[in-house]
């Protein structure tokens, strides 16, 4: 009995000693906390985001870390469940005591964690889309994807440039579609345009012919805009082709991926959408400041993981890089200093766009950071 206890005590002492020694060797790491929807219905967001974070943390550490300290990624999988996201955020803040959080794949997960993060005074860079995250501005919350408001604005701009003013809107009733619909309705007035038909579908619907027929039968519609996520936009596009509707058709940035093209077949010809330049790295002119960043990210990601890069991973790339930039600028991990540094980032070139943060804009991207792409011969073509 006493032998056993002695052996255990010895083992404990050995582990303790080992941990002290490793502690003395390296500088204390900078802890980057993250909660992402790596599994579950939003895994198409969380999976590339986590892979990107892992890839770049490895690379940054290999290059000597940030302000002389290595990075340590502490991440949890919230499986798309907002309460789990809140709990993991709580764990990151209170138990792991990370220095900054980069995460939150969906708007629900982000918003569930925001009250806690705000009160804990922790810099937080969200990877989710809806405009509510940074409008109104929350002192400690930043985000890298363009907001749905910017997407709506960009699409409407492009319509206007083609002389279209009367829009038929079709949107999903999920969080993404609903927020997008509101932003579009708010934006048309400002652009001097008009939504003449406004229909919705449930994300679980398998046929949207009825809704599209209603739009087609509305007099005066000049173009159709679909704001949705996941499977539904592909079904809408197919139905659109089947009904033979001959109007310009737009999708949102929510489906801007190569995978979406595969789902469409020939049905998508002529379809336009706002997207990250990541989809068309080769078509970017050499004068484009983002070309170098985008090409290098795509190459590294595809080499490391042997799978296609996605827009969503790009959000994580920008989130991590902004965090690193801010910590370098602040010269420490002091939270207030890092927050101030984040707020003062100007002209930072990321994969998603060029970031110009300010105390009134915690997203820092303008609608122009979206490129309008068109599907031509089953490939993306850069329009402008």
């Amino acid at each position, binding site marked *: 009995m006493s032998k056993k206890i002695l052996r255990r005590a010895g083992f404990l002492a050995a582990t303790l000693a080992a941990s002290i020694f490793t502690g003395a060797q390296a500088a204390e790491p900078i802890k980057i906390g993250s909660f992402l929807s790596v599994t579950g219905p939003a895994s198409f967001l969380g999976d590339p985001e986590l892979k990107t974070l892992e890839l770049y943390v490895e690379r940054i550490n290999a290059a000597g870390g940030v302000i002389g300290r290595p990075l340590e990624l502490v991440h949890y999988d919230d499986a798309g469940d*907002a309460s789990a996201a809140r709990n993991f955020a709580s764990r990151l803040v209170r138990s792991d*005591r990370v220095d900054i959080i980069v995460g939150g794949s969906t*708007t629900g997960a982000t*918003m569930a964690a925001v009250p806690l993060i705000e009160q804990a005074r922790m810099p937080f860079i969200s990877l989710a889309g809806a405009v509510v995250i940074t409008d109104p501005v929350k002192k400690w919350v930043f985000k890298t994807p363009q907001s749905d408001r910017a997407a709506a604005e960009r699409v409407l701009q492009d319509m206007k440039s083609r002389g279209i003013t009367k829009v038929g809107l079709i949107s999903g009733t999920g969080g993404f579609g609903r*927020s997008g619909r509101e932003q579009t309705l708010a934006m048309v007035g400002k652009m001097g345009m008009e939504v003449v038909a406004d229909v919705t579908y449930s994300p679980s619907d398998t046929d949207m012919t009825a809704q599209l027929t209603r739009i087609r039968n509305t007099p005066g519609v000049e173009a159709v805009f679909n704001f949705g996520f996941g499977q539904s936009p592909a079904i809408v596009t197919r139905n659109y082709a089947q009904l033979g509707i001959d109007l310009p058709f737009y999708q949102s940035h929510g489906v801007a991926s190569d995978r979406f093209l595969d789902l469409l077949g020939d049905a998508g010809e002529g379809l336009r959408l706002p997207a990250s330049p990541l989809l068309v790295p080769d078509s970017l002119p050499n004068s484009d400041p983002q070309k170098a960043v985008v090409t290098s990210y795509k190459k590294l990601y595809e080499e490391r993981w042997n799978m296609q890069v996605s827009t969503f991973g790009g959000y994580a790339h920008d989130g991590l890089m902004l965090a690193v930039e801010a910590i370098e600028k602040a010269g420490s991990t002091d939270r207030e200093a890092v927050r101030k540094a984040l707020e003062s980032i100007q002209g930072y070139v990321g994969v998603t766009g060029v970031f110009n943060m300010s105390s009134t804009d915690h997203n820092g991207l303008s609608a122009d950071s979206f490129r309008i792409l068109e599907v031509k011969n089953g490939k993306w073509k850069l329009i402008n």
Partner: protein
Amino acid sequence: MLKNFLQMRLKGLVVLAVIVLLLPLFFNNPFHYDLATQIAIFAATVVGLNLLVGFAGQISLGHAGFFGVGAYFSAVMTGTYGWTPLPTMLVAAVVVALLAWLVGRPILKLKGHYLSMATLAMGFIIAIIINNEGWLTGGPDGMPVAPFSIFGWELSSFNQYSLFGIEFGGDVAWYFFAGFLLLVAVWIAENIIDSPIGRALRSVHGSEIAARVVGVDTSYYKSLVFVVSAVYASLMGSIYAHFSGFITPHLASFEQSIVLITMVVLGGMASTFGVILGAVVLKLLPQVLADFQELEMMMFGLILMLTMIFMPKGLFPTLQNKLAERKRKKSEEQA
């Protein structure tokens, strides 16, 4: 000694109180308080659900719906319309009680498991309404909730409080508040179980026909306990909303109902302390397994499966029996 402790009603409550009081000795950061508070809230919810499942032998597959109604009622009324939290919570409970009575009364006149179907449908309807009425509930992305307050005294997990000169954080205050609520919930539940209502319910569970023959109005008692368990869920839903500060429709989802039922079955049906253990295990596991990354879900499923295969009566009753058996063997050896 231990056996007596586990079996006696009041002593069980005392043991639980001691556990709640002493647990903070093992906490070393605010996250532990945060997690323990949630466990207490969910434990109190399933203590109520257990009255229905364990004692009346009826299954509710829509209990998260009641939890969600309580949470959203509190969130909307305190947030949008400026009501004070405590009365709002009580009004929510009355609304939920009426709803449960409306659903339960006609259904529970029938024999068999019709209640599960009715509650399943009701849970879905509640979740759909919360999801779709975005102007009121914030839709799928959820809505923020104001902190809890009692008579103008605000309880937020981020404030600092001082009592008799001792400084402590809001997370500690919340933990003891939730622990207190759990004790009250258990006390009420234990009293219901040991009252004529409880005995009537157990007779229903044993044999409904026999119960009716001796003059027990079975459908009345079943509806009554259904309402009580729904009120438990609603009150705890309100508390959870104020505690977490942000709620999403996921709270009212079918998955969440299943989680609640699993807590009951895993911990041990018809054992008040068993279901608390069920809540502890089910809430702790995801955090403990988080370090296993991809294997998390697999291990979670495996643990549940093995528990059900080797401990079909649930964790607590099985452990209790084991202890009792060992004790008996020991006394036999001595004799």
